[in-house]
């Protein structure tokens, strides 16, 4: 492969962020995400951006939110323990509609757990870690190249929908180095801006797509930012109508455009009798398992969501309708398997291969977990 370089997953994240226009990073280094901060501190100042090492993860995301309100494209990166501390501000960024990117490189938990081992234990935390009814956009790459692509996508979706976007991958994806060719240029989306008179600007009045145009502090527009429930003027309210309008709108702006957000890989499903549902590093194992199972004459396919949230219920239901068994493999004790069961609604058998011991799920593990009615496995 000409021009290929050995690139680490965490480095690809930095390169994707810079390609997407990231110009602000605030964070507190933590294994296995630390390389993102280490590489960012070397490269971001040269790219005209600002890097601040914060005292903790609470302050990290607060600072990212402030930088974004001032017009920056801002991100932070962490792992489970720091991700826990960020939950409050993820809710604030969702409510105040502040674009930002949060990277969670998953390690074994709970608590400090297994700092240097892989896990997929934060999937539900990424969805429901912050309180209240809220949408979540969560992207899950399964290779170094995809880390780059989905980091770019995370920034673009954050800008497009004025909402925090979470990029989530495990320690193996973060630390593994692969030979890849990364693009020099990518498509970039910028937040929409108001074109009306500053004196009549309503900071939370949505455009037709449900997303309010956004100004930066210092642009000459006056606006108020709050985590309290607020009206279109941006000021707090307890009015039930205003409350319902806001909560509904922050959901609808995401769920009405799920086709722009969702990405699902389907592999060898056409004649499949069994499908493996897997994401992140397990998606790589599953793809290899499918190829080996096919060589053994087993009709197995793969469904791999690159967007975990919003969950692709419809695509999973479609796949399930054509097969006998869905094998859900994840490096936790059962998180997305519940959503798969919701999607399938009892029409297809769902079985789990779940592992939370700090070791990856291998292709051999998955082959052994496949149902084998015909005795095709040897």
């Amino acid at each position, binding site marked *: *492969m000409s021009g*290929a*370089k*050995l690139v680490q997953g965490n480095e690809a994240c930095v390169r994707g962020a810079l390609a997407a226009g990231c110009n602000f990073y605030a964070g507190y280094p933590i*294994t296995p995400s630390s390389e993102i901060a280490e590489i960012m501190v070397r490269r971001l100042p040269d790219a005209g951006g600002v890097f601040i090492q914060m005292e903790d993860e609470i302050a990290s995301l607060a600072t990212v939110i402030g930088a974004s309100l001032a017009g920056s494209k801002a991100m932070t990166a962490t792992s489970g323990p720091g991700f826990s501390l960020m939950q409050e501000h993820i809710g604030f960024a969702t409510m105040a509609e502040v674009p930002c990117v949060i990277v969670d490189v998953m390690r074994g938990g709970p608590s400090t757990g*297994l*700092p*240097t081992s892989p896990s997929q234990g934060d999937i539900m935390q990424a969805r429901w870690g912050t309180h209240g009814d809220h949408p979540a956009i969560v992207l899950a790459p399964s*290779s170094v190249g995809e880390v780059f692509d989905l980091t770019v996508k995370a920034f673009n979706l954050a800008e497009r929908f004025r909402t925090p976007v979470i990029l989530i991958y495990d320690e*193996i994806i973060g*630390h*593994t*180095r*692969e*030979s890849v060719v990364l693009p020099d240029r990518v498509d970039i989306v910028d937040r929409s801006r108001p074109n009306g008179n500053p004196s009549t600007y309503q900071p939370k009045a949505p455009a037709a797509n449900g997303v309010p145009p956004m100004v930066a502090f210092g642009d000459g527009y006056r606006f108020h930012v709050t985590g309290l429930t607020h009206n279109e003027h941006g000021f707090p309210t307890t009015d039930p109508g205003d409350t319902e309008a806001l909560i509904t709108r922050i959901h609808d702006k995401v769920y009405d455009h799920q086709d722009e957000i969702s990405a699902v890989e389907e592999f060898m499903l056409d004649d499949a009798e069994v499908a493996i549902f897997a994401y992140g*590093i397990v998606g*790589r*194992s599953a*793809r*290899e398992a499918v*190829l080996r199972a096919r060589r053994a004459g087993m009709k197995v396919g793969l469904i791999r969501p690159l967007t975990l949230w919003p969950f692709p219920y419809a695509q999973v239901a479609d796949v399930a309708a054509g097969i006998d068994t869905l094998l859900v493999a994840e490096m936790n004790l059962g998180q997305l398997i519940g959503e798969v069961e919701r999607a399938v609604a009892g029409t297809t058998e769902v079985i789990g291969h779940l592992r939370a011991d700090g070791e*990856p799920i*291998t*292709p*051999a593990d998955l082959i052994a977990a496949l149902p084998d009615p015909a005795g095709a496995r040897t």
Partner: protein
Amino acid sequence: MGRSEFRIAGAGGQGVVTAGRILAEAAILSGSEAIHSQVYGPQSRGGASRSDVVIATEQIGYPLAEQIDLLVALSGEACSRYHPELMEHGRLVADSRCAPTSLGVRDHQFPIVDTARSISGGHLVSGVVALGVLQALTGAVEADALDRAVADRVPSRHLDMNLKALRAGARLVTGGVG
């Protein structure tokens, strides 16, 4: 060569992660595909550490090692932990201080860590000595690509020392005069 898997395992501080990275970069410089993965403990010094490198002529699907072709064990712990996992075709290169339970006809023991100490005064270049051994035994990558990968990866003030370590590793295999 379809797919080859190499594991360099030892203790934190022996340079095994750097060595794996150099091997993968040398493979890419040689025109192959390569993936490097690492496993280490939460300690900043000491503890077990390992590098796995998958080298293939075609794009690599599953990135992690499953059937190691060559294991280089630089510590007793690495040897006792990973030697039993080797499949029938896998070869062991153990440091002389290790005490493997068995040594097959294709396995070897070399004073890798002692060679590193004689060159650098410490064990830091053990991983690079191991690369010299690995290259001489397998020819997994092109020799000049390995030199270039070392030069790309190590600080220039330490380049001579690392190239010396690489050559010394190769001589452990070929038996040339030190």
